[in-house]
């Protein structure tokens, strides 16, 4: 076991300094529900842990420019209990609610769910369809990065040495917008997505879809934002023909593996089935927001 050093800096600048200067393996500790397990099971043997929870405002959930700013260490339960955020982005909450148990959500964060870079991370597809951006801080300054550009491969992110996510921004939503996320799992709780689908859409006054984003999880090395899926439903009222096109586009975009949780063929098929169901939920939610 490495000579582990634990630090809990009081500013984001100090966190960056610690991470940038680290020799060996360094890990950011937000909720810890992945990092502590990986330490416990000897998957990682870090030399430095930087606990960010002592940084002021790192757990904030606040309105900003008509949207929301979510601090990196806001826990899943805090997000689920925040009526404003949960009301604005029910599809994101669909995903957050599926991250482990109540106990796990008491600690786990969307930031960790994203940076753990599992293809099956449940909060990631709805964050992508929301158009959320990560505010990344590092030794060379800050940058805002689309959520879909953070994971690059299973377990790997695009963050450079010394960089960490300080917060997310969720944009303001037009009227008549709705989002949703569903996953397929053999069990209803405490499971890992075999396939996950998120849809975020906006309707005009007549109920015609004017813009849409569709993202697939667990069917490729990283989350997929699929333009062909959006194209299938934009300009429609999500009639059966549009939904069939959406399903076909979702299945066509999948690049899944076979594993113990599902075969390649099953995942491709289910992605289409779920895409239809999720689009209908998002549509109904958008109608209700009219």
């Amino acid at each position, binding site marked *: 076991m490495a000579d582990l050093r634990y630090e809990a800096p009081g500013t984001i600048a100090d966190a960056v300094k610690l991470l940038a200067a680290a020799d060996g393996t360094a890990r950011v500790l937000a909720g*810890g529900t992945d990092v502590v397990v990986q330490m416990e099971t000897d998957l990682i043997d870090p030399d430095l842990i930087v606990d960010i929870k002592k940084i002021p405002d790192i757990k904030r959930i606040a309105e900003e420019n008509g949207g929301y700013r979510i601090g990196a260490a806001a826990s899943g339960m805090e997000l689920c209990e925040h009526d404003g955020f949960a009301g604005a982005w029910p599809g994101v909450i669909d995903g957050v609610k599926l991250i482990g148990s109540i106990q796990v959500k008491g600690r786990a964060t969307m930031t960790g769910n994203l940076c753990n870079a599992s293809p099956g991370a449940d909060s990631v597809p709805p964050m992508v369809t929301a158009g959320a951006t990560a505010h990344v801080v590092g030794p060379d300054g800050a940058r805002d990065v689309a959520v879909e550009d953070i994971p690059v491969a299973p377990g790997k992110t695009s963050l450079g040495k010394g960089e960490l996510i300080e917060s997310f921004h969720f944009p303001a939503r037009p009227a008549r917008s709705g989002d949703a996320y569903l996953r397929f799992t053999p069990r209803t709780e405490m499971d890992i997505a075999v396939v996950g689908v998120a849809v975020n859409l906006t309707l005009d006054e007549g109920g015609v879809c004017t813009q849409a984003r569709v993202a697939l999880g667990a069917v490729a090395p990283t989350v997929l934002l699929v333009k062909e899926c959006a194209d299938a439903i934009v300009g429609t009222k999500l009639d059966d023909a549009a939904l069939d096109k959406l399903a076909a586009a979702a299945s066509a975009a999948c690049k899944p593996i076979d594993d113990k949780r599902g075969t390649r063929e099953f995942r491709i098929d289910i992605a289409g089935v779920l895409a239809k169901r999720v689009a209908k939920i998002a549509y109904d939610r958008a109608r209700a927001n009219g």
Partner: protein
Amino acid sequence: MSKKLHVEFTVNGDEYDCLTEPHETLLDALRDKLMLTGTKEGCATGDCGACSVMVDGRLICSCLMLAAEADGAKVETIEGMAAGGELHPLQQKFLDMNGLQCGICTPGFLVAAKALLERNPNPTETEVRFWLAGNLCRCTGYDKIIRSVMAAAEEIRGA
């Protein structure tokens, strides 16, 4: 040798301070440093809920939190559940209705169920089952646990 960290927190209202290794979990500190062994280790990976405790009013798995993170925290464990030697209604119902067999999962179930009833005194059976999805029991088949929680909720509401 990792540098030890001095942490202070309260457990069930009592102040504790101890030296912790950076990799030591709150679960290990509770059991091995403070000798509060009511909190159980099942999986040590956050899947079974046997180590459930409250930290600053939030239900968590103590195996998923480093002891160092608990500095300044208010921790509540199963040892604080029976007030003045009198069992909490949940504890009494688990006994009366055979809500346990081997008992390893029981402290976690009790702590988790108490957290539920404090925020929702009148849960449906479905709500109880979903809330307790992170607590695994390999003996009872869950039904007696769920019935015990429902009965305790009814008793608390009537009290």
